[in-house]
């Protein structure tokens, strides 16, 4: 097992820069998820760690060893691919053993590991089959099995669940989590699906356009997004964003948001005239809250355990509101909604989070 250190890591294709000077410390035994929209460079970064892509700038170190010039075959890591990449001409058993044979492992040890992996993943009955005779979920298990027999110091996953149907994905997600709990090996996991990121990660790295937007635990990302991008990216349903004008004429900062009554802001370490206020759909309440307004229901998405209401304010802006689903609403209905100021996230004109200064707000 090993941690990983990235220092000023960059990837350029000619003039095009895909990864821009990343610094990241991945702790030993951590489940780190790289998440971001497509094209953000997350897969490229993973492939650079794996040794499948050249590192054009900076250094990548596994443990204490810089691996920039080490070929993939010598990095002692395992990778699970989105397409599974099982060897089509080998049986499941051979797929599992292939890597071990390359490392000249004694036969007894090899058989022990293969049997162990097969047992953990419950694929013992499939050992003589060829990949084309397996279902998607079974292929996925074999791919994971191929990774764990190596007992590597580092696991890499490149969107391993995105080829599975929704039900299997949820199931495999849980199994991966329990596999991690059992092995405790460092894992780096790439996904574009923030739900996967939230449910499995010890820490999440949000990437955009080759840069790190925020690193943190799922809770940190959800409760304290560092910028508007992370706020918008993490959390489902998506966070509501309101453009506010700040008026400091009266000595106290007052926010004006079209469609909402003006309300006073806590003390913020920002002098910007315009702020973006974000509030999660779950923090908007029907008929309650410090700041209240009227809205027209445009759409009701009933999901069973909750209802998602699309509510248009008088300004035309639509807010997503998550309700417990016990009351039925009809579209066209006018209702009052509100939220508490403590549930608001504040972002300055540059899109960076501004944190209310707690003491002073308590004084007032």
């Amino acid at each position, binding site marked *: 097992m090993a941690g990983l250190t990235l220092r000023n890591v960059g990837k350029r294709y000619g003039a095009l820069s895909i990864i821009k000077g990343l610094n990241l410390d991945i702790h030993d035994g951590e489940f780190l998820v790289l998440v971001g929209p497509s094209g953000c460079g997350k897969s490229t970064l993973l492939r650079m760690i*794996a040794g*499948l892509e050249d590192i054009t700038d900076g250094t990548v170190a596994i443990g204490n060893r810089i691996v920039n010039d080490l070929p993939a*075959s010598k990095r002692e890591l395992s*990778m699970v*691919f989105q397409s599974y*990449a099982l*060897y*089509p001409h080998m049986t499941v058993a051979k797929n599992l053993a292939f890597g071990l044979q390359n490392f000249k492992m004694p036969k007894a040890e090899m058989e022990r590991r293969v049997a162990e992996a097969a047992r953990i993943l419950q694929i013992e009955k499939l050992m003589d089959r060829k990949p084309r005779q397996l279902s998607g979920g079974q292929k996925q298990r074999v791919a994971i099995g191929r990774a764990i027999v*190596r007992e590597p110091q580092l696991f890499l996953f490149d969107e391993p669940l995105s080829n599975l149907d929704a039900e299997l994905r949820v199931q495999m997600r849980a199994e991966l989590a329990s596999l991690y709990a059992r092995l405790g090996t460092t894992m780096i996991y790439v996904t574009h699906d923030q739900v996967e990121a939230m449910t499995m990660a010890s820490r999440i790295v949000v990437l955009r356009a080759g840069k790190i937007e925020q690193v943190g635990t799922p809770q940190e990302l959800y409760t304290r997004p560092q910028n508007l991008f992370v706020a918008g990216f993490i959390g489902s349903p998506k966070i509501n964003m309101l453009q506010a004008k700040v008026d400091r004429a009266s000595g106290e900062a007052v926010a004006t948001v079209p469609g909402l009554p003006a309300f006073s802001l806590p003390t913020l370490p920002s002098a910007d005239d315009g702020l973006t206020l974000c509030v999660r759909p779950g923090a908007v309440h029907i008929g309650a809250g410090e700041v209240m307004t009227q809205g027209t229901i445009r759409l009701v998405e009933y999901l069973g355990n909750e209802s998602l209401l699309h509510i248009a304010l008088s300004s035309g802006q639509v807010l997503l509101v998550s309700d417990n689903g016990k009351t039925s609403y009809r579209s066209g209905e006018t209702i009052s909604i509100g939220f508490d100021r403590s549930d608001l996230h504040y972002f300055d004109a540059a899109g960076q989070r501004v944190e209310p200064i707690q003491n002073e707000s308590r004084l007032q």
Partner: protein
Amino acid sequence: MLTSCALQRDRRERNGRILKHVFLIGVSVVMLYPLFWLLASSFKPENEIFGSLTLWPSSFQVENYTKGWTALPMSFTTFYINSAIVTVLSVIGNLISCSFAAYAFSRLQFTGRSFFFALMMMTLMIPYHVVLIPQYVQFLKLGWVDTYLPLVVPRFLASEAFFIFLMVQFFRQLPRELDEAAMIDGCSPFKIYWAIILPLSLPAMGTAAIFSLIWTWEDFLAPLIYLNDIKNYTVPLALRLFLDQEGQSAYGQMFAMSVLSLVPVVIFFVLFQKLIVRGIATSGMK
């Protein structure tokens, strides 16, 4: 109304199909007639070969075959052995060298790859006649004339770019993740070639092997230039000797030996038709 209309259409379609079959069968007869004529003539007595359209011989002259086999100064046993040596070595050479090059072009990253690939594609166009003279001069200086080396050694240097192209087309279809998974599983580039790419490319290798075999078997120009001594002759060169002694009019024997020379090709065609058809369709050559 509707059903009668459909019925009418069905009938029209069926008539069209029958017409098509009649036409295609007609074309098939024209296509195959020369071959059957050759086969029939090879069994006919000398005086029946010309001047009659009947394919069936009045009596089967198996001597055409037995006599034809030894009609030339050397027996056809020698020629077949010679052809077999050249063919087997050429096929092996082609498979090894062309799959190497194809693997490099399709799966490995290196500076100058697209440049060399373009060069390789250009060599597809070059007529053998253009390189023939300097090659001949060179092989003569090396003392290789009248040996099989000029026919075989170039095959080990991937001289038939067509097969590289065919294999590149096939290799490119294999998912790149396989190489990457193998790399992570500790494979060297050679191990990936040997344990992943080759086993997955057996159809392409088979197609290349069959074409290589048939073309080498039929090859005429290179043996004509490089082989002088009759004891080194391949089958096509031997067949030509029949033409030179035409005055003696041993047509039956000549046809018998011609038929025999085609037999390996036809057998391979029947056995490996699928591979051949697919090979042509994907690579689109010859």
